[in-house]
């Protein structure tokens, strides 16, 4: 039976967890890069032992780490992220123009086919790519220089490019999501971009139906059906059936439609998962109960998943990159909390078990199957 490797980024280091296919017993190593913030780490779909990690701190800036042996050993690679050409300005919190400034890498998305090619979504929002295993990085400037960019504005967490989706059926198609600008799609491998926010409605911006300015928290797709996208927005859970050209709300019977992560079952393209939290001003689960909500109908109808999760006195959140699914059968679902727990469900969400309970606050969770 094959196994899985879980990659967990926290506020104070990274952890690598492995298990066999039963996903019952786990070996935990770490903290790697102890004391640093690990916003994200992810393995190459083309080589499960090739990992990339974003390591950063307010003191010492950005570092990128790479492993060629599944996380046993790491080496620093390139950390020079320089915007291509004049940086221009975006809007600051107070509405004044503010020059683009690199702050950190939020998300690393390895190529589906080449272990040496990896994309980086950064704050202030831009998309970079490396084709030499992370040693050097080049911006794909068409996104940052899009005509709408001077009107983009940061969310409370900074103006971050946090989601990168690569279309397995069309290698030249890339989706990105930026807080608080929205979704953008390129159909020419990142040269040019179009906003993909029609149908989104955000009451917190001057024009609720604006072309850009929406605080999209996360988007997800199933690789067998890449034209269908699911979105957790600041408020509202949304779905697109036309590769982002238009969106419709699928919040249905959720207790609240505010949240951060959203993910899709590995084998059922209409089974999706979210973790609602109380509100934009109270970032913890409602009613002090940690509940994952699952829809098996592509939205609208949701069921709470609670078996094995705390149902009293719980005030954690699950951040946008802190949920993942594996490709085993039954599908495994994982998430990490701001309280430092990492939970696994080896039965597609029916029941949950903590792998660890006391890590630093979890920022990201990724998983991949081992041969």
């Amino acid at each position, binding site marked *: 039976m094959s196994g899985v490797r879980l990659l967990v980024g926290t506020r104070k280091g990274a952890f690598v967890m492995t298990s066999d296919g039963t996903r019952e017993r786990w070996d935990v190593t770490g903290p790697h890069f102890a004391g640093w913030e690990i916003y994200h780490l992810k393995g190459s779909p083309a080589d499960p032992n090739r990992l990339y990690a974003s390591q950063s701190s307010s*003191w010492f800036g950005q*570092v990128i780490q790479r492993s060629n042996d599944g996380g046993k050993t790491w080496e620093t690679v390139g950390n020079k992220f320089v915007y291509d050409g004049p940086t221009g300005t975006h809007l600051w919190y107070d509405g004044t123009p503010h020059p683009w400034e690199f702050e950190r890498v939020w998300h690393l998305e390895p190529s589906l086919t080449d272990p040496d090619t990896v994309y980086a979504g950064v704050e202030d929002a831009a998309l970079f790519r490396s084709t030499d295993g992370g040693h050097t990085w080049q911006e794909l400037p068409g996104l940052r220089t899009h005509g709408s960019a001077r009107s983009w504005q940061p969310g409370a967490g900074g103006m971050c490019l946090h989601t990168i989706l690569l279309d397995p059926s069309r290698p030249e198609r890339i989706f990105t999501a930026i807080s608080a600008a929205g979704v953008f799609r390129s159909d020419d491998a990142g040269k040019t971009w179009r906003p993909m926010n029609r149908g989104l409605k955000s009451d917190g911006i001057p024009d609720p139906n604006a072309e850009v300015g929406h605080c999209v928290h996360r988007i997800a797709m199933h690789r067998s059906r890449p034209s269908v996208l699911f979105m957790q927005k600041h408020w509202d859970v949304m779905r697109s059936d036309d590769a982002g050209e238009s969106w419709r709300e699928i919040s249905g019977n959720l207790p609240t439609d505010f949240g951060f992560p959203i993910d899709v079952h590995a084998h059922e393209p209409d089974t999706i998962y979210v973790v609602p939290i109380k509100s934009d001003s109270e970032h913890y689960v409602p009613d002090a109960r940690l509940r994952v909500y699952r829809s098996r109908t592509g939205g609208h109808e949701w069921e709470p998943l609670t078996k094995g999760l705390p149902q009293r006195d719980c005030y954690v959140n699950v951040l946008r990159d802190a949920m993942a699914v594996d490709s085993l059968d039954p599908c495994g679902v994982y998430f990490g909390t701001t309280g430092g727990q990492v939970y696994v469900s080896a039965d597609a969400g029916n029941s949950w078990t903590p792998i660890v309970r006391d890590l630093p606050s979890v920022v990201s969770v990724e998983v991949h199957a081992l041969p």
Partner: protein
Amino acid sequence: MIIRVVLPAHLRTLAHVDGEVKLDVEGVATSRAVLDALEACYPMLRGTIRDHVTQQRRAFVRFFACEQDLSHEPPDAPLPDAVATGAEPFLVVGAMAGG
């Protein structure tokens, strides 16, 4: 001349060094010359003390020596003789903060 440099713990870990770093610096000992030599020996430190492009010191990094804060000295100002002769180290310090 051999300059002694003390790095903060996180950068010692990143550079895989224990204790002080000893650098052979040619010409006048300045903070720029010391950091150039440091980054040449330990390329993984590039961008962690000063910006890749502007070479500006990162905001939460300080340079101390001989009980003085040299952080705001011009990068080409000579360092104290005691640093240039190796009698005293050049300290790269992460600003004190919790969390």
